[in-house]
């Protein structure tokens, strides 16, 4: 085990608890790739990361890139919230849960940038993008302009 590599990973995400089941996800973020767990035996995706497939109990869990395309499933606008660089809440800040195209109910939560938060609606189509937050890439979404799901 390359301990220095693990220390380096933790140093890039100082406020995030990372363990052996989630490390692949965060390593991939550093390369601006969104990676979620997929079962090598039955093909089912699951999130958050887990050491076993909840469908078939296989241990062959494969961190696998997703396209990052999907639809807004849940949406809340924060009028106040935790401090974060570039987030001042003067305009309500969107937190969205996106249902990814890979599988029904496979979801990833972040924000939508590039549009007024008050224009966002459940069902709108989004795609993945990346910004920098605290020295590490953060996956975010942008509206694609496709017809709503």
């Amino acid at each position, binding site marked *: 085990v390359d301990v220095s590599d693990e220390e380096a990973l933790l140093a890039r995400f100082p406020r995030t608890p990372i363990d052996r089941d989630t490390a692949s996800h965060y390593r991939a973020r550093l390369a601006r790739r969104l990676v979620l767990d997929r079962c090598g035996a039955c093909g089912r995706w699951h999130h958050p990361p887990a050491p076993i497939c909840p469908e078939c109990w296989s241990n062959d869990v494969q961190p696998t890139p997703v396209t990052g395309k999907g639809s807004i499933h849940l949406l*809340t606008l924060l009028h*106040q*919230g*935790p401090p974060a660089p570039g987030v001042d809440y003067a305009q*309500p800040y969107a*937190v969205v849960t996106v249902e990814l195209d890979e599988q029904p109910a496979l*979801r990833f939560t972040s924000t939508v940038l590039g549009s007024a938060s008050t224009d966002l609606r*459940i069902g709108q189509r989004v795609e993945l993008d990346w910004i920098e937050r605290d020295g590490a890439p*953060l996956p975010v979404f942008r509206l694609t302009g496709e017809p709503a799901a």
Partner: protein
Amino acid sequence: VTGSDNQLKDRVAVAGVATTGFTPHNTDRSAASLAAEACTAVLRGCGLRPRDIDGVCGSIPSAPAVQTMLGLPEVTWFANPPVPFGNHVVAAASAIRSGLCDVVLCYHVSYRMAWNTASALRDPFRRPFGAGGAGAAGPETIAGAAAYAAWASRYLHEYGAPREHLGYVALNGRANALRNPVAAMRTPLSMDDYLQARMIREPLCLLDMDVPVDGADAFVLTSVERARDLPHPPVLVHAATLGIASDHEEDQMRSLSRTGQHVVIDALRARSDLWIDDVDVYFPYDGFTIITLAWLEATGWCGRGEAGAFLEQHWDANEGRALINRRIPMNPHGGALSEGATQGSGQVREAVMQLQGFAGDRQVPRARVALITAGGFFTNAQGILLRRE
């Protein structure tokens, strides 16, 4: 769901309750002092001495800390389950029924925490209770409280419901709190007030969220036989359950139509001889208004998406609150939204007081059956049916 052979049915009783009352600002008291006040009051009220207590079950402070603070000489069972308080009732009733102990002191302290109020964060004696919360990893998450705002927006989207449907829950709680001398929020509230309240996590505003308070509740649970020898009318635990559905992470939950709440209702019905036609007073959890609408639907008072219309239909305009079938109040103490955020202990206390006939101006005439549906969608749904002997 199994449970038609409910070994717990009517074998354990709540023998007494006590409360400190609730304040929506930082008191100059410790959490332990609030626990001490409620616990000594309930033991005195039940005529119990320290050596009578062999079980301790609560939230904060720890059960061992409460034991030694009160000088309970020997305890054979103790636990600190997570809130909401249905967990504590279920744990204590199970322990009594299985012979691990005979008389349990249960308690819950509500204490304004540094992580959820700015004024608590400024109180140096409250900082040990943490300023962390979901903020540590930034705002882009719905873990924790934000989940209820996110799923509230899904609810409004799926059913085309207006915010007024959430508002009825807030108004109901406030109208009830006006009759409750220990409630934290006792100024009248109108729908206009609700709609103009400060937005926090859209679509939920300040009045959709329960009120952080200082205060404590305490309870004595024991066998029905033992409770009959104590001064107050025994209130029997008729059926109780916890409920979790799979995929219960906040953003992975499949839908609002199959949550822990539905698991609770199926299990509670299977274990109970009583159901909603028998209920005299109803306690749906209201830590967020959306939770109450969801409980009304999951419990079967109305269909999916119909909770707002149900509240309109059962609204008593004179009293400014819901009275189901013109007789069944919901959270007559004011609930978490207006009595104070007690994580369900207030609902259990008020249910017991109503069934004992001790609810004063709030008393439901001849109340014999109370239904408590506590907790939210994800990992903390709970159900308790209480009845007067």
